[in-house]
């Protein structure tokens, strides 16, 4: 239960961070971290397939696409001034939600935990990742390599253009 609550809090922190971050790159990385936390929650609830797909598509593929897109944005485009006042309301909203969650969510989680026991036959993270979906991991490694090379391919030209 503690593990689960910790993951839930972590997911919320990453989500808020993604919105509040000043740099697009930080936002993309925080979104990936959020997806990773959510996929661990899926695993915890006995839904390894949902967890693996969340990890593959959102934490892997989408992050690479975001980072690829961010790397294409030129330096001067990043420097447009932005009115960030409205974002400061977000931590307040999160605090109110956290207090409400303190009262209402534990009961909800208990109910979900029953569901987890029912789905106990769904398999573990290890089984899902390394046994059932092993080729996907290879695809993810390729995707990460592709992301790194996209950045390596685009950044030198940005430097040259300057």
């Amino acid at each position, binding site marked *: 239960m503690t593990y689960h609550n910790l993951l839930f809090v972590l997911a919320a922190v990453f989500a808020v961070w993604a919105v509040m971050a000043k740099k697009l790159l930080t936002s993309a990385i925080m979104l990936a971290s959020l997806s990773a936390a959510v996929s661990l929650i899926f695993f915890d609830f006995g839904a390894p397939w949902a967890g693996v797909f969340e990890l*593959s598509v959102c934490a892997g593929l989408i992050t690479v696409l975001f980072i690829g897109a961010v790397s294409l944005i030129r330096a001067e485009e990043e420097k447009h001034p932005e009115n960030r006042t409205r974002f400061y309301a977000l931590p307040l909203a999160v605090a109110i939600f956290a207090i409400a969650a303190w009262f209402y969510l534990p009961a909800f989680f208990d109910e979900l935990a029953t569901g987890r026991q029912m789905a106990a036959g769904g398999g573990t993270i290890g089984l899902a990742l390394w046994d059932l979906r*092993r080729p996907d991991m290879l*695809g993810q490694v*390729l*995707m990460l*390599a*592709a992301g790194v090379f*996209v950045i390596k391919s685009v950044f*030198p030209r940005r*430097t040259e253009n300057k």
Partner: protein
Amino acid sequence: MDKGLLAYLLIPLLSAVIIPFAAKNRPKLADILANVTLLAGLANLAWLALRPSIIRGEFADIPGDGLSLLLVAAIYLVAFCVTFFSAWFLDEHLPNRQAYYSLILVSVAAMCGVVTTTDFFTLYVFIEVLAVTSFALITTDESSGGIEGALKYFFLTFPASALIIVGIAVMMMSLGGLSFESLRIFMAADAPAGTVTFAAALMMLGFLIKAGVAPFHAWTPDAYQGAYAPVSAYLAGIVTKISGVYAIIKLATLLRFFDGRAQAVSEMVMFLGMFSIALGALAALKQTNFKRMLAFSSISQVGYIVLAAGLGTPLAIMGAVFHLLNHATFKTVLFLNSASVEKSAGTTDMDKLGGLEHSMPWTSWTSIVALLSTAGVPPLSGFWSKLLIILALWESGLKTYAVLALLFSIVTLAYFMMMQKKVFFGKKTAAAESSPEVSAPLLAPVVLMSALIVALGLLFPYFYTYVKMVAERIIL
């Protein structure tokens, strides 16, 4: 996943990771590492293919359905020709030379993943890797055309990815699994196939967009024309064929189009194939840019493969597989020749070119071999694959499609003859006056591919037994 072919995926990935470190201060080392990796893979494939048992026509040693091995060979061959050509073609001071080769090797690994996987979700992951690497490769050319091509590629192929993932989700819900085998078993049974067919149709639509089939072809001419010349050859020759066309053939066989289990999808695929043949050929007639004309020709030729895949009979699948391989050879030759013309004459505008056959005889002759093969002139390889497709259509009673496919083959010959006349024959124009033949290393891959076109045509009876084995294994 076919473990026997895993090394063909892992070794290019390893090289791709090593290149940026090893070639950090010596950019030429990137050329050597990429070429050696692909050549080693080709040597290994040749050793596999030239075993006495395989020459005797016994294919017990061939892993999986045989199609994977054949396509891995095509991937390595086209990638090797492109990297070898690039080594002499690329600007000495290209700042991202190492990343260029790493991206090509990662895409080779991803394509090997696509052709060896046996699961729809894994297929999707590898196809997305291909989409990311292709996008970056198109932007290698920083001209406005390159960026426009890359953006069009991005905006038009990512909705395709969305369709594929929704299709996968619906299939997971209705079938309970994502392996190719589960779909094959389900389609072989007599259970009502409504939801599963719907899921497959969504995926098929996504793959049709990825293959650049009309009317979803808007990204193809801009991407091919705008991309760096060797990248166009790479994309048109093999990448779009693996990320789209291969998946269409695979899905067509799994859906058992040949026994009418998914009649509506089969008819839709055949219609789009025929539409693509017609639209590509008619649009190619009007083009004045060499590369853009080749792009429309590519749309038309992909139409033949899709038409045959939509029919789905063993003979049609043989024709589709063989035409896919032939397309990889002749389109690579034509695109690399367009790169040579661009390098030598400084333009690919056909109105400004002319009379290049005297100064560029090798480029001219290899173009003739490739264009005759594309048009289906005997005894070149393209003739046999088109013959198989037209025969399969005729046998199945689709005589209108058969006649139209034959007629548009003549249109193909017409636009290619016009291209040859404008670019290579006739009087020398100002641009052609100072256009010497490109160096021998730039000609070598083109001559190799042209020799392969002739050899595949002349030795067709030997090759036929292999393709027949492939068609039997993937259908039965």
